[in-house]
């Protein structure tokens, strides 16, 4: 009640109760999932679910994975109920994240088995699609990581992806695929540079700057698309990078088609994630970049040029986003449509937060989103009674849950979003 109650012990105690409460909430969520699995996915479900693990022309053909749907889902519900009860009674934050992750995975598996009961479903095809759909999200998230590590919030990823997609289509039509790809990267970098100029030099609010770049890119690309592309169709007809199989590795069952039989963009994304991780955490330049993001004044005092570091990293982030944007045109259909990125950049931003501002984390989160995305596509074929709109909503709702549930434990760079004024 009095001022004395806000001493050092109070926050710690409060934090404990908060964790306890959270653990109990997780427990309730898990039990609710168990009930859901029993009532909806388990009860009255008959037949076997057959998952294809390889395709007919693969080097090694695995037999289909056949699961009896009803029993599987009852077992799944039992595991969920056990995890939930344990979580609820024992509390403790130690296992809660793991429990909820396992719980969600089991729920998704139960859902898949229920939807596939009596039918067959190509698991390997879906995993391959997951990887493909994760690419723009992962690259968007990676662009976000590069920017936010130097404390520049990049809402403009969406616009950069769109600019990359547009430029990829336009220049790809004129110069061929590689020319288009290079131009997309350059344009992405240009918008990164513009963002850096607006927020570093002109000290514009970072979120406003990002929103404005999004609006501007959407305006320009839609304008040119309806004003020019509609008339001169040859300008919007770029070649597509086909997928190619890496010898030997591509023949590994399940993983092969997912990782080693893809197009340039998938390989590029994987390599970039590795390079970015190395750059940020194992080179002196990465250390400098991170110090600018955590404590720019200290970095400045030590002789690091804060402004230049921000310019360089945000431009690099823009280039990554431009590359990711090219996926939309050069990696899929070779044609640009108005607003074709459809919010992927924002999901990339969420992937960055989910991935705790780490390139590998962003990639993992992007895979989760890609999984949800491809799941929704495939489920439309299975004719589940759930309306496809709600399935399409799942990634967005998942994002909200993730941002709400995990943001407390994942910490952004300390100076994130704050402009730095050199004294």
């Amino acid at each position, binding site marked *: 009640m009095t001022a004395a109650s806000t001493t050092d012990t109070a926050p710690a105690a409060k934090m404990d109760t908060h964790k306890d409460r959270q653990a109990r909430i997780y427990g309730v969520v898990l039990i609710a999932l168990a009930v859901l699995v029993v009532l909806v996915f388990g009860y009255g479900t008959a037949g076997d679910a057959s998952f294809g693990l390889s395709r007919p022309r693969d080097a090694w053909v695995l037999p289909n994975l056949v699961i009896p749907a009803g029993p599987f889902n009852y077992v799944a519900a039992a595991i969920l109920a056990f995890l939930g009860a344990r979580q609820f009674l024992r509390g403790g934050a130690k296992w809660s994240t793991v429990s909820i992750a396992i719980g969600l995975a089991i729920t998704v598996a139960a859902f898949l088995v229920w939807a596939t009961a009596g039918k067959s479903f190509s698991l390997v095809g879906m995993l391959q699609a997951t990887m493909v759909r994760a690419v723009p999200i992962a690259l968007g998230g990676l662009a976000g990581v590069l920017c936010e590590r130097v404390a520049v919030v990049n*809402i403009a990823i969406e616009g950069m992806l769109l600019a990359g997609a547009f430029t990829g289509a336009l220049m790809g039509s004129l110069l061929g695929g590689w020319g288009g790809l290079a131009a997309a990267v350059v344009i992405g970098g240009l918008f990164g540079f513009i963002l850096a100029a*607006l927020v570093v*030099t*002109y*000290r*514009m*609010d970072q*979120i*406003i*700057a990002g*929103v*404005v770049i999004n*609006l*501007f890119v*959407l*305006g*320009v690309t*839609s*304008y*040119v*698309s*309806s*004003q*020019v592309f509609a008339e001169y169709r040859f300008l919007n007809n770029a070649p597509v990078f086909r997928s190619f199989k890496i010898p030997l590795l591509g023949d590994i069952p399940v993983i092969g088609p997912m990782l080693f039989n893809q197009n340039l963009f998938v390989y590029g994304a994987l390599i970039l994630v590795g390079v970015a991780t190395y750059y940020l955490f194992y080179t002196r330049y990465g250390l400098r970049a991170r110090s600018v993001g955590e404590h720019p004044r200290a970095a400045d005092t030590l002789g690091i040029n804060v402004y230049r570091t921000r310019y360089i990293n945000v431009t690099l982030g823009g280039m990554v986003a431009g590359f990711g944007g090219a996926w939309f045109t050069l990696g899929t259909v070779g044609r640009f449509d108005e607003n074709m990125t459809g*919010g992927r950049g*924002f999901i990339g*931003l*969420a992937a960055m*937060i989910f991935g705790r501002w780490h390139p590998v984390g962003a990639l993992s989160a992007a895979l989760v989103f890609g999984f949800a995305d491809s799941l929704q596509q495939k489920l439309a074929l299975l004719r589940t009674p759930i*309306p496809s*709109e*709600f399935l*399409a*909503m799942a990634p*967005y*709702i998942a*994002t*909200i849950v993730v*941002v*709400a*549930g995990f*943001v*407390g434990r994942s910490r952004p760079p300390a100076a994130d979003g704050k402009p730095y004024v050199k004294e």
Partner: protein
Amino acid sequence: MSDTTNQQGLVQELLQRAAPGRAEFEDLVIVPIFAVVVALIVGALIMLATAIDLETIGRSYLALLQGSVGSLNAISETLTSAIPLVLAGLGLALGFRAGLFNIGAEGQIVVGGIAAVIVGFSFPNLPWIIHMPMALIAGAVAGGLYASIAGYLRAATGAHEVITTIMLNLSSYLLLTYMLGLDWMQRPGRSDPVSKSVLPSAQLPRLLTDIDPNLRLHAGIFVMIAAVILVHWLLFKTKTGFEFRASGENPDAARYAGMRASMIIVFAMGTAGALAGLAGANQVLGVLERATPGFSSGIGFNAISVALLGRSHPIGVLFAGLLFGALEAGGRQMQVDAGVSIDLISIIQALIIVFIAAPLLVRAIFPWGFQKPETGRKE
């Protein structure tokens, strides 16, 4: 030399004291005017770059002017386009004042519009004096609740409202598509996603049909004016408004002063969403008289620009909304007359915001238009 600079400094200081509004005047009037001019010039350059000849460019800007203020019909169109922009912009401005960057006006408009249209077609035989306000309120409540989700998550878990509102936007489109396909929602005899029509008793009556039946200006303009006054009162004359502004300017100080940050966040988001929902209700009750896919048509995003351009001040938002409404009405005319795509308008709008939000940039482009920045005094 030093003597003259000293004198200049003294004169400036005196001027400052005599006309304290000089700096604010520059910020509020000169920067926006320069911003609009530069944006139009850059727009012309973009048209040139896409192989449009000078004559067409001149014709399109003439059409832009005529289509926005050139006739009674043009003014009616400008006002009609401005109504939802101002309403949603007010909501966003309120959020900005409270330190919340609500990108979700679009989703709140969609949800508000859905609620308003449902009430609008569901209650036959109600007198309009009950039915129309009821539909408007339904829109406001739905929008407010939808925005409160983001507000609650921000207050309870710290989830950043930018991300959550964007996700709620994306979800709202899917919700709309789903609802428009429902049996009781879809217009009988139609296979495409169109809702039933709003009953006449719930429609916002058109005001100028006596002069010309094509004039679309509707009673939503009174809602808009009332909202401007109400938000002005709320922000500047009430304790709640003071709390909004205080926690927006300095959240820590507000918390130490005993203001309940969580309540303020939820309430500010809810009010903002209610205003955006009202904008959606205005669109379906006053303009479209039904809900269609994409009826929000980006109003929620343009409203962000309107709120920024209006400096998050209710009166500023009103004028900014009128300007953007004029650009939109003029843009349609431009598309018809000169064959220039209306997407050019969104480029111009984005450019205006760049120059507004980065006053340093405008000052760098037009060094002669402003007082010399007094080093050390400002910022």
